[in-house]
């Protein structure tokens, strides 16, 4: 049942976003995340949302897959929102009941905070949704390669990451086998208290660990036999190339970032307030 399991959130689809260079996607996601923290106005949030929806559409992802990642932080968002709503005491008071005070500034801050978190998480999830773990590991290796100059074994770290990813389906399969074998001997995994259930996992984990060490030993021999570490100048078959679509992606996110900065720092100087132009007296 785990034979074809793809680890993580990866959503396979044939789109330009999926085919982008993983390094470009990593850096652009970083830029997007930084960009969101500069957003202060409703216009900025709208702009971010438009960018996000556009990427989702181009990537041929279902909206639900993006929202699913938000579900994970829903509780966090809710708690932070409540704290913000009741703790901010400055500004015009809207509602007051005993010690609970809701102010206009509080409402605005809360709405913006929720928007920021939701857009942040869904934006970051786009990376995991459109990039396979292997591509991510390769991309990270490539981005970290300058660290090799300060004697950090980037190549070995990348090899460890990719082998770990490679063995996930194998270990899943093995776990299933061990669980079946222990069940056949009368072990029960789904009854009793939580403590009893956790304890029931020990006879699964021990053989799993022992077998993993045996596998690691055999794998080490196999890698040695195939000349691992033969030369410092290890080459790579796959070479990521900077395509036209990568250029377009960079341009898009960079212009988004620039617009965010302009709207926050330059527009107020020349007396433009887009939020006021849209919402007028509502604010």
């Amino acid at each position, binding site marked *: 049942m785990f034979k074809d399991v793809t680890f993580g959130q990866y959503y396979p689809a044939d789109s330009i976003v999926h085919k982008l260079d993983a390094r470009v996607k990593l850096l652009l996601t970083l830029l997007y995340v930084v960009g969101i923290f500069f957003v202060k106005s409703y216009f900025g949030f709208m702009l971010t949302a438009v960018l996000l929806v556009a990427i989702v559409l181009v990537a041929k992802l279902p909206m639900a897959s993006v929202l699913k990642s938000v579900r994970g932080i829903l509780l966090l968002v809710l708690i932070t929102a409540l704290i913000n709503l009741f703790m901010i005491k400055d500004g015009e008071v809207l509602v007051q009941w005993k010690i609970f005070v809701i102010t206009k500034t509080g409402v605005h801050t809360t709405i913006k905070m929720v928007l920021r978190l939701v857009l942040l998480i869904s934006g970051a999830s786009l990376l995991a949704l459109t990039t396979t773990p*292997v591509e991510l590991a390769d991309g990270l290796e490539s981005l970290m390669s300058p660290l090799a100059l300060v004697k950090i074994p980037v190549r070995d770290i990348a090899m460890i990451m*990719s082998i770990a990813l*490679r063995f996930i389906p194998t270990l899943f399969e093995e776990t299933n086998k061990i669980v079946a074998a222990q069940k056949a001997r009368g072990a029960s995994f789904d009854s009793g208290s939580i403590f009893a259930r956790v304890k029931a996992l020990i006879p699964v984990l021990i053989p799993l660990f022992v077998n993993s060490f045996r596998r690691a030993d055999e794998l080490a021999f196999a*890698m040695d036999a*195939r000349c691992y570490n033969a030369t410092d100048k290890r080459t790579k078959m796959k070479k990521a190339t900077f395509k036209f679509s990568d250029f377009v992606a960079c341009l898009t996110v960079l212009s988004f970032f620039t617009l965010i900065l302009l709207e926050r720092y330059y527009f107020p100087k020349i007396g433009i307030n887009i939020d006021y132009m849209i919402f007028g007296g509502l604010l």
Partner: protein
Amino acid sequence: MPFIQLKNVNYVYPVREGASLKAIKNLSLSIEAGEYVALTGMNGSGKSTLAKLLNGLFKPTSGEILMDGVSTADEDKVFDIRRRVGMVFQNPDNQTVATIIEDDVAFGPENIGLPRDEIISRVDEALAAVGMSEYRKRQASALSGGQKQRVAIAGVLAMRPDVLILDEATAMLDPEGRDEVLSVVKRQNQNGVTVINITHSMQEAAMADRIIVLRKGRLAIDGAPAQVFSSGALRSCGLTLPPAAQLAAELKAEGFDLGAVTDEASLVEGLCKLFK
């Protein structure tokens, strides 16, 4: 000069402080380039240790192994020897390094730092040689056992080896997978690659030009399959004859001499001759 030459090779495993295990004892033999050798013996007879000695994963405790004139103990040449002596292991899952098949085949050539174009052409060639070209972009975990072992062979072939060692590479496969792997190996041997197949199956051993049997780390029997099967020496090494040879041996005891029988084909031939 023979391609592979073992001179009085001993190998001792250190088990723990003060204790050790002699796995290979005073072994001398030679294998010519292009031979198809089956290496067999009971569990613990030293087969796998010998395999690991042949490509420099282990160094002889004493004695010497020469691979095309180069000692496997030569630190400067060890990677060259590993490239020339490829090895396929028993468990396909424990020798696949990459998730995607073509990446796994490219692992060896990448390790020895070949230029990118060269790697791509070698991966193409190796996958075609084992009949797995159409699977190149697939995930290795989704393949059958026989397919996984063919990919492992492709990974070795991409290094353009002189010798291919199969360390019980068919032991975990179903009969279909085993036939797939053995036919790939046979073809490579016909192209001039020296093959050393380590196996428990006498039927598989019968396919070789030569059978070498180890017993407790020593050379017990060395000869052509027909010769080895008719000598009656296998039993003393804890091995049994393949079914066809067993039948021929029993018929011979009853007075029907079928000549040299190693497999079904030679059994049929012997029977036909007898009834003429």
